[in-house]
């Protein structure tokens, strides 16, 4: 496990930057809106979903019903269920760690898990778990620091959140260069652009992912030979 953590750490540095910036901003914003640092830490530990946590800050001050909270949570986080779907086998050997691994899945760590090949001599399941665990720790620490010290620190971080997008684009580029079969990637981009254009940035996620899956089935006969990641 220690070896896997050491092997995973360098790959997670871009996530560290991104989470530090976003987590810190989240902590600062929350305390500004009246949350306690402890509430920020709990939200980061038990909800652990960046965009949703920002929305929650607003919900705490509103009088919406708990049912609506559940519906909102589902619509904002629904993309997360597709990640586990492709990791069923790789995560099946995690044993008692599996429930925790499931809890720690995010966009960025999922991209790392599928984009970075496990180094030689490192146990795949521990490598995967290390990436998830490091991301989880970065976020909790960054959010709490933001909550505790945000008010005293004055750095212009405008644009720092691009680190997250850069990481995803870099991983996409790597994956693109590693294979000659580009149709699955093109399907992902094409359906996302189409649904983004049709439904707008806050509503395109589920249509994009379901349309992707539908297209992957349409091309199934010709894509069957795609090698496992």
């Amino acid at each position, binding site marked *: 496990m220690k070896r896997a953590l050491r092997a995973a750490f360098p790959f997670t540095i871009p996530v560290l930057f991104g989470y530090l910036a976003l987590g810190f901003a989240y902590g600062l914003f929350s305390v500004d809106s009246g949350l306690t640092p402890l509430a920020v830490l709990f939200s980061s530990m038990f909800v652990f979903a960046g965009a949703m946590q920002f929305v929650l800050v607003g919900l705490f001050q509103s009088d919406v019903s708990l049912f609506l909270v559940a519906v909102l949570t589902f619509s904002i986080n629904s993309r997360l269920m597709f990640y586990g779907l*492709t990791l069923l086998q790789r995560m099946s050997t995690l044993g008692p760690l599996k429930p925790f691994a499931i809890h720690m899945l995010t966009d960025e760590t999922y991209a790392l898990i599928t984009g970075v090949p496990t180094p030689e001599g490192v146990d795949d399941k521990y490598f995967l778990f290390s990436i998830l665990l490091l991301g989880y720790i970065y976020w909790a620490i960054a959010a709490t620091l933001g909550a505790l010290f945000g008010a005293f620190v004055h750095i212009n971080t405008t644009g720092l959140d691009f*680190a*997250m997008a850069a990481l995803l*684009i870099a991983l996409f580029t790597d994956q693109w260069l590693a294979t000659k079969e580009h149709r699955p*990637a093109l*399907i992902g981009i094409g359906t996302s652009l189409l649904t983004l254009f049709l439904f707008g940035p806050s509503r395109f996620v589920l249509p*994009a992912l379901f349309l*992707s899956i539908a297209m992957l089935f349409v091309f199934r006969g010709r894509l069957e030979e795609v090698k496992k990641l």
Partner: protein
Amino acid sequence: MERYWGIMIVAAVVTYLIRALPFLVFSNGRTPEVILYLGRVLPYAIMGFLVVFALRNTEWADHTSSIPIVAATATVILLQRWKRNMLLSVVASTVLYMFLLQVVFV
């Protein structure tokens, strides 16, 4: 304060159930062949989706928003192709993006 905890618990439980859903559905016995197929090809599509997702809020018609995004995105892709160094690609493009936003297109 009670209401606060209620909201937190609902959000936490729903988020966990979303993450766990595929594992709950396919918990007993063997995973169907169709799902194994998705496990092979869907990650590529999801990565494409995530790129669009990361750039979804760009105001393409506003050049003070689109030029920095296009320049930084091109930087990531070209650097990554050239050097294959994740950290370099991320840091260089993010610094460029911050510089464009904070200094050039203020």
